């Protein structure tokens, strides 16, 4: 074997093993998220009675009804067994009560909606042909709806969370943005030290600060109120915003502002007409960080709220307090992620916005 070939082989072996490792890591990261989503669309039956789990949740449930001397029997198709398995009551009659109970059971266990009339119709077919097979469309969002019905104050908590995150973004961006602008544009003694010390507030874990925060907020009359919580979040978010916006403003040449001042604006006007629009993508990214940061926060929120919890607190408590009900909790978790995802998608437009690739 010549050395060139050897080298090539070694290189491709190296690369292949790198890819294997990378793909492995990707799976470790992606799979939990994937299953989170997948579970949130599964019915109870799918969650607990099918193993191995299907990769994607099904969109319908297949049923079979047959009949013997005891009465009617209901079966559901189990994908991992690849066969119909007994489902629901041992046997039932075609009385109105039994049919209505069956409907409720199907809805609860298989997340599928079927009417009493439809069931009676199927039973008549069984009477004639001894068995019937049918499929019912699955209600994909059943878990989500159930979550908000079952968990007390979940909807209110979403509203609270939105208020907290919104207020945090506004506070962090205005104060942090002003600080960042000052750091980017002005020279003063001890500037670097001050800039570094801004990060100081982020060095303490939220829990250790939470108790004093409770006392302070209670004195301010802001305990258990969204505004109070957003003030607490703002402390950390402002310092991060200062760093992000400072670098955003630094990347905008000061001569663009000076030009604006020569061509008719005041200093504030120059900021308004020139710097702000140019900084928008960076500020949007900064807003996104603040939003996600405060939207997902749990620890401080648990301590600082009582009757007005934020949504992550509700999900967290549901998770801790539930026995099983995995599919329900995953629905809550996904519901928590959705606003952050939507916010990111909205803001993405600004983040990837480029001014025609100009060198400024």
């Amino acid at each position, binding site marked *: 074997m010549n050395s060139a070939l050897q080298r090539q082989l070694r290189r491709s072996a190296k690369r292949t093993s790198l890819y294997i490792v990378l793909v492995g890591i990707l799976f470790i990261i992606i799979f939990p998220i994937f299953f989170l989503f997948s579970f949130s669309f599964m019915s109870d039956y799918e969650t607990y009675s099918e193993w191995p789990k299907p990769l994607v949740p099904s969109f319908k449930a297949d049923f079979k009804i047959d009949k013997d001397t005891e009465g009617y029997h209901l079966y559901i198709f189990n994908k991992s067994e690849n066969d119909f398995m007994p489902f629901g009551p041992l046997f039932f009659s075609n009385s109105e009560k039994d049919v209505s109970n069956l409907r409720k059971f199907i809805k609860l266990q298989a997340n599928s909606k079927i009417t009493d009339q439809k069931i009676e119709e199927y039973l008549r077919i069984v009477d004639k042909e001894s068995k019937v097979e049918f499929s019912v469309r699955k209600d994909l969002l059943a878990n989500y709806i159930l979550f908000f019905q079952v968990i007390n104050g979940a909807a209110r908590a979403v509203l609270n969370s939105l208020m907290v995150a919104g207020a945090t973004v506004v506070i962090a961006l205005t104060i942090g943005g002003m600080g960042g602008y000052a750091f980017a544009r002005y020279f003063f003694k001890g500037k670097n030290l001050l800039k570094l010390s801004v990060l100081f507030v982020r060095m303490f874990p939220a829990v250790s600060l939470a108790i004093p925060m409770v006392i302070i907020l209670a004195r301010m009359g802001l305990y258990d109120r969204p505004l109070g919580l957003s003030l607490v979040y703002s402390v950390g978010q402002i310092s991060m915003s200062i760093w992000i916006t400072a670098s955003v403003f630094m990347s905008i*040449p000061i001569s663009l502002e000076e*030009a604006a*001042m*020569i061509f008719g604006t005041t200093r504030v006007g120059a900021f308004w007409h020139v710097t702000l629009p140019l900084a928008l993508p960076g500020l949007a990214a900064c807003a996104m960080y603040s939003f996600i940061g405060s939207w997902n926060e749990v620890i401080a929120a648990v301590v600082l709220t009582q009757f007005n919890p934020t949504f992550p607190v509700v999900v967290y408590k549901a998770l801790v307090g539930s026995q099983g009900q995995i599919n329900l909790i995953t629905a809550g978790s996904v519901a928590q992620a959705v606003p952050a995802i939507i916010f990111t998608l909205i803001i993405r437009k600004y983040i990837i916005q480029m*001014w025609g690739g100009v060198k400024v």
Partner: protein
Amino acid sequence: MATLELVDLAKRFSKKVWGVRKMDLDVNEKEFIVLLGPSGCGKTTTMRMVAGLEEVTRGTIHLDGKDITDIPPRDRGISMVFQNYAIWPHMTVFDNIAFSLKLKKMPKAEIRQRVQETADMVKIGELLKRLPGQLSGGQQQRVALARALAVKPKLFLMDEPLSNLDAKLRVVMRTELKAIHQQTEATSIFVTHDQSEAMSMADRIVIMKDGEIIQIGTPDDVYFRSANMFVAGFIGTPPTNFFNIRCSVDGEEISLKHSNFKLVLPLKDFSELDAYNGKELVVGVRPEDIAVDSSDKALFTNKVLVVEPQGSHQVVALKLNDAIVKTIVSADQSVKPGDSIGFNFNLKRLHFFNMETENRIKTASEI
């Protein structure tokens, strides 16, 4: 169309750093002034003070007789072209040019007309809808120019507007700028450190060094009557050659002795040199004033070190006593490195400088 007066203007950035030490300058109406000087001499600082972007440490600025030293940039009636253009990347070319007009609340139709007019003047009339990122460097430069022209300023400042362009475009823009100036007749100050740009565009050149004005004068003034050795060495490519000589007056003649040659001049034309009898002084000779002389009247004969052909002419470098002397020779003469060639000076174009002060010694023979 305005006059500008800088009186004792100075800018000190910190204890040790002076941007400008002292500037006294009167700019006349419609004049095109070029600030010229080596890097760091304070050209940009001067412009920024005039524009109002930099606070002055000392001195005053008068525009049309009005003291504008302390008024904000937007109220000065000045416009500026920045070295890096500084056009706003998020606005279309139209919006860039219209920016100041919109702020002045000019009627829409009038704005459109003015923008089109100025854009046509700098030949970007077709590009108004584009973003600056979609333009070439030269086009961006024109946008910056149009933006500054649209204001119809009293005073038009340009800080090295051509320095980012390639050599060819630069020469083209030079001509266009000059034409635009003649059309608009706006008083202009133009900064450059390219001296051929300065020579070709200026009504008057202001030569600066270390934050101070060294000489103010027409291109001819600074070229033919350089105020000191710095100016003589700075202006002209290749720069002036300097020779240290000893001067001795001998009856009606002055002889200037260099280790390689001896110049004999009539005293009546150079009577100012009388005072330097027995002293040393510096003679400056521009490259084009050193001519090849193959006759036996040649002042000195020397070996050619290097020949640099330039097309229209060639630059011939000699080594004279460890000093490099450069001369300009017409293209049709064949000169090769190593040739021994005789040279002569154009005696009407000699520059004399005091050795200590480095200042020019004026002589009657000056043109």
